[in-house]
């Protein structure tokens, strides 16, 4: 099976907007995707959650689009859309029936050019409440809901931009003013801080002309200086532990580590390690903790890639009732230690590669996903052609690459351990849970 290949062009308007065109007439659909080079790491102290709150404001109208009309127009055209905010970036995307391409481009251009003309206190206040309810829904009212915030807090020092969660704090959200939002727009939302990708059923010549017409007149912004160097060692200087008591029926142990940055070849090897450790029921952690020793309800291990100093490698094991939490943690750590000492077997590598190959084809099937990947590689590396090189990078990972990156990543003084313990009145078997007295070694 030949590796999937995406043909595209990559150009720049005089105002700095980079754009990628990848025609593919297979289905009568087209994806439009914009990445802005701004995420929660660009927020200043006291203004956490702004990048994400701002993303909501981007759907509240612009000079020629009224409140909520952006989404209404997309849906009435038979399209889907959304926006997401993460540590390093914010993206906005639409998938449209192909004859509606220009509508999506026009909507993106109008808010890039004229958002502030429609910004008002009422809409900001409304979306502030929506975002606070999003925070409650996604984190505060969820069992084990704060684990990712806790990992970020402990993995990154207070002055590092990954220390705080993208959703922000209630206090900072409450304090966000119109001036703050306007300032954020002027600083970060400009053609010279954006990448636009179009993938699917369209004529590239027409698209080029439309992009020039709609986006060409938008003024670039004097972007601030790049963020200061934030590279971090993988070591934390000592294991960090925190125990949390929550209304959960089963204890759960979360582990977190700093990992090589996104784009570093070592992160590919760590992702393959993740597949071998916890991908499916043949994986090492699942086999040992869930199937054989039967001490865990479920296990996970995964990598979140970031460009600003370090990525995160994280995992968890949910502890079966009646099992000592410390035993589960120890078994999990033994497996991390083993993969850092001994090369994975040839068969493990063959299986992981075969699954990566299938995933690579699956991840490029939809025009929407292709557009997002092209924007991502252009935003982070100015190299959208990485979309066609990534699979080979994964397949080139050797058993020694895996062992080496695991040895670098998993030493004891690199890890954060967050343990969720059931509240005394919330245990399954009348509070008889063992292991609730796990030592706090911090």
């Amino acid at each position: 099976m030949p590796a999937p290949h995406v043909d595209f062009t990559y150009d720049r308007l005089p105002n700095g907007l980079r754009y990628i065109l990848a025609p593919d007439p297979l289905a009568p659909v087209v994806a439009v995707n914009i990445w802005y080079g701004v995420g929660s790491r660009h927020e200043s102290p006291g203004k956490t959650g702004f990048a994400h709150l701002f993303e909501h404001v981007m759907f509240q109208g612009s000079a020629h689009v009224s409140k909520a009309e952006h989404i209404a127009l997309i849906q009435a055209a038979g399209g889907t859309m959304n926006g997401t905010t993460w540590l390093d970036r914010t993206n906005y995307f639409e998938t449209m029936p192909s004859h509606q391409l220009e509508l999506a481009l026009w909507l993106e251009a109008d808010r890039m050019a004229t958002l502030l003309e429609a910004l008002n206190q009422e809409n900001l206040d409304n979306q502030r409440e929506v975002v606070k309810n999003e925070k409650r829904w996604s984190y505060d009212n969820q069992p084990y809901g704060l684990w990712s915030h806790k990992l970020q807090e402990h993995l990154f020092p207070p002055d590092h931009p990954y220390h705080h969660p993208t959703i922000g704090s209630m206090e900072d959200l409450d304090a966000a003013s119109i001036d703050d939002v306007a300032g954020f727009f002027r600083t970060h939302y400009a053609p010279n801080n954006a990448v636009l990708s179009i993938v699917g059923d369209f004529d590239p010549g027409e698209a080029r002309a439309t992009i020039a017409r709609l986006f060409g007149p938008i003024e670039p912004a004097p972007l601030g200086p790049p963020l200061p160097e934030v590279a971090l060692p993988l070591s934390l200087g000592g294991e960090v532990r925190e125990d949390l008591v929550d209304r959960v029926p089963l204890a759960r142990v979360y582990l977190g580590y700093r990992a090589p940055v996104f784009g570093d070849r070592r992160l590919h090897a760590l992702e393959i390690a993740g597949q071998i450790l916890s991908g499916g029921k043949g994986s090492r952690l699942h086999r040992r903790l869930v199937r054989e020793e039967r001490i865990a309800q479920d296990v996970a291990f995964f990598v979140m890639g970031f460009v600003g100093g370090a990525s995160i490698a994280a995992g968890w094991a949910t502890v079966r009732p009646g099992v000592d939490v410390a035993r589960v943690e120890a078994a999990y750590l033994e497996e991390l230690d083993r993969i850092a000492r001994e090369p994975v077997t040839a068969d493990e590598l063959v299986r992981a590669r075969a699954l990566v190959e299938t995933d690579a084809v699956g991840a490029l099937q939809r025009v929407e996903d292709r557009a997002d990947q092209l924007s991502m590689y252009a935003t982070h590396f100015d190299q959208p052609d990485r979309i066609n090189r990534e699979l080979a990078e994964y397949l080139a990972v050797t058993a020694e690459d895996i062992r080496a990156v695991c040895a670098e990543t998993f030493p004891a003084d690199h890890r954060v351990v967050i343990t969720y313990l059931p509240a005394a009145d919330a245990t399954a078997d009348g509070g008889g849970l063992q292991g609730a007295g796990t030592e706090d070694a911090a």
Partner: protein
Amino acid sequence: MSGEHLATRPTPGTPRSYEFPPFSRSRLANGTEVRVVDLPGRPLVSLVVAVRRGATDEPAEIAGVSALAARALSEGTERHDAIGLVEAAERLGAQLHASAGWDSTTGGVEVLADRFAPAVELLAEMMLTPTFPTSEVERLRDQRMNEVLQAYADPRRRAEIAFDEVIYTPDSPYRRLLGGSRSTVPGLDSAALRVRHASWIDPGRTTIVVGGDLAGTDVLGILEPLFGGISPVAPVPAPAPVIAASAVDRPLVRVVHRPGAVQTEVRVGHVGLARRIPDFHAVSVMSAILGGLFGSRLNMRLREEKGYTYGAHAGFDLRAHAGPFGARAAVDTDNTVPAVIDLLGELRRMRDTDVTPDELRAAKDYLIGVFPLRFETPGPVVGALAGLAMNELPDDELARYRPGIEAVTVADVRSAAETHIHVDRLAIVLVGDADRIATDVEAAGFGDYDVVAEDLAPG
């Protein structure tokens, strides 16, 4: 900053014609139906084996047996133990899956076209010759027991459980947990799973659907030796009649206490509709306007106007028999009562007034326009074709979808709302901090009212 060049709104181009991909139908020697849809340029092939038999006809005392049996299929076969089976599939870059729903039980695989034959062979082995080893079944049972505990601790899942318990009569399977409860799961042993599995070996109720770039793949030639020889191991009794009756005959409120909850999970609704109804298209448009679109009445009121929630939705879960109809939102605790009032108001308004022509046009254009987007890749195409077979719907059902939506009128929407939204017997389920909301909820007079404990150790 200026945007004069953006003052003119674009006009759409000419729509490219679209038809749901055509498929062929044939039968294996034993009568198993096969549907094949060739999708050139889609190398990731999807295959589903669907059996028209789900959890609804399980005896109540072994509720969850279908789900557990489906989960246990991969725990070992006559040729492989569990690890051997999963490793063989992984060497092909494939992951086998199986699950039971209310109305059907399915197994499937997604695999690159050049590895299709060996992957399907493994799938057949898993579906037809499982051994249900005692020890592994015990482990899955324990895991399911813990899963129920986790479901009760999760406010969203807790709300769904409480809602089904309130709206359905005790003898309805839809009142139960699909995967089984803490009282039924301990009784699910290997023998029970084997009996359940035997009831799936029924060519007359089985449909295999394959989609993807199948150039050079002899689908029937591969399937015939694997699935064409099986026959029922014993006469399979016809499924028992399914009861999907409403337990509610007047408005009522149930509060599930969740101490310290910063939001209330709200569910409002009643027993809804089955999939096979004459006014399916009108119901689809009505649901979109009420709570399906981003610009739906519920979302605009509760989110974009009031800021009570991250999202408010409503819809019908259409099953072989009447599934639930519900509106749902998670609202901050202090706004629980105002949010319920707005939600009830929108349900009433849907019945009491006509939708505007603009609302109708927007909803129809969305449903019609988004249809090709839904079927861009093989997985959803195969899923939809299997769904047709499981619901015993005609072959042209998907081809007729867009004209059917286009034909819906303002009067049709009004009629659908009047016929299918029953404001006189709405159940309101609130999972939240009763210490903070109970007094106001009771005072609001929504209906007969009770509060139940959080119950983190359900029976």
